């Protein structure tokens, strides 16, 4: 069973405010955190760094959405086992279903709460 402090989370969000807040939330749960501002950058990091244990990504991002990133991760033999959590400010059942059907680990409504992150932390440690 891993400890939270060994777990590396890649946080993806085009909003700098959201990146800072989610990063702080994750660090408060003792995750190690890398933040990037796009799906494209996320894939670059994932290709170079095999230590990522979880991806948490915003849904609405320009060029590559969080859903697109999720699909690319799940289509990759090297990356498909990394759990992907989607965040969105829109509480759209269609969007949520679409992401979960594509293999998302969870779907969080923004603003993300400490209790949401604690839940992710507990599940990640149990893996």
């Amino acid at each position, binding site marked *: 069973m891993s400890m939270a402090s060994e777990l590396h989370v890649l946080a993806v969000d085009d*909003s*700098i*405010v959201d990146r*800072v*807040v989610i990063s*702080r939330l994750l660090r408060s749960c003792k995750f190690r955190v890398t933040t990037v501002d796009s799906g494209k950058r996320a894939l670059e990091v994932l290709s170079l760094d095999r230590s990522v244990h979880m991806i948490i990504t915003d849904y609405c991002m320009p060029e590559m959405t969080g859903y697109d990133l999720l699909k690319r991760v799940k289509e990759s033999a090297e990356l498909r086992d990394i759990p992907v959590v989607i965040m969105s*400010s829109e509480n759209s059942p269609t969007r949520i279903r679409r992401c979960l059907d594509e293999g998302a680990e969870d779907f969080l409504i923004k603003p993300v709460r*400490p209790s949401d992150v604690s839940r992710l932390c507990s599940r990640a440690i149990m893996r």
Partner: protein
Amino acid sequence: MSIRGEEQSSDQSLNESLLLLLQKDVGFAMWSNALREPCFCDSWIKLLSLVNAYMFPSEQSNMRKLSSRGCSVGYLDEQFCQVEDLQDEASPNFTEEVVTLFFKDSARLMSNIEQALEKHPRDFSRWDAYMQQLKGSCSSIGASRMKSECMSFRDYCGQGNVEGCMRSFQKVKREHAVLRQKLEAYFQLLRQAGPAGAASRPVM
């Protein structure tokens, strides 16, 4: 709530008022109403000093939450308290850093919207996309009134209502300016009140 020591503040009436509020547990409502009165605002620094002097550090956090709400009733929601809760000894200025970042980023987003309104007439899809970003930022720091105006703008985009978009964008800008003033004042007050008391707990 426990109160440290037996010493009385030099301003006994203010201290007694504070104790009364705490004991009756109606602090938030009374403070938020009282803060609308200019004379009470003048004593705000003194109140925060009392919080530092007379409360245990664990209680100071709750009182600061009340004070931030009191300062910005209606302008900020619970999310702002969540952000403040992320502040600790390792990140003692986290809240102010995030707020500073928000105002810098939101100014940029509003500039984008302004340009889009001018250069891309009736491009509601573009306008909406920009405003969605701004709304998201507002939501992240708990800027509830500003967020509400952002949502209004997006509703007008959905209706294809140019006039409505223009009017609500002006409101977004006004709320942004007011919120900036209030939060600048809040952080200024916090700085003047001084850091959390480092004195040891009293003998009870």
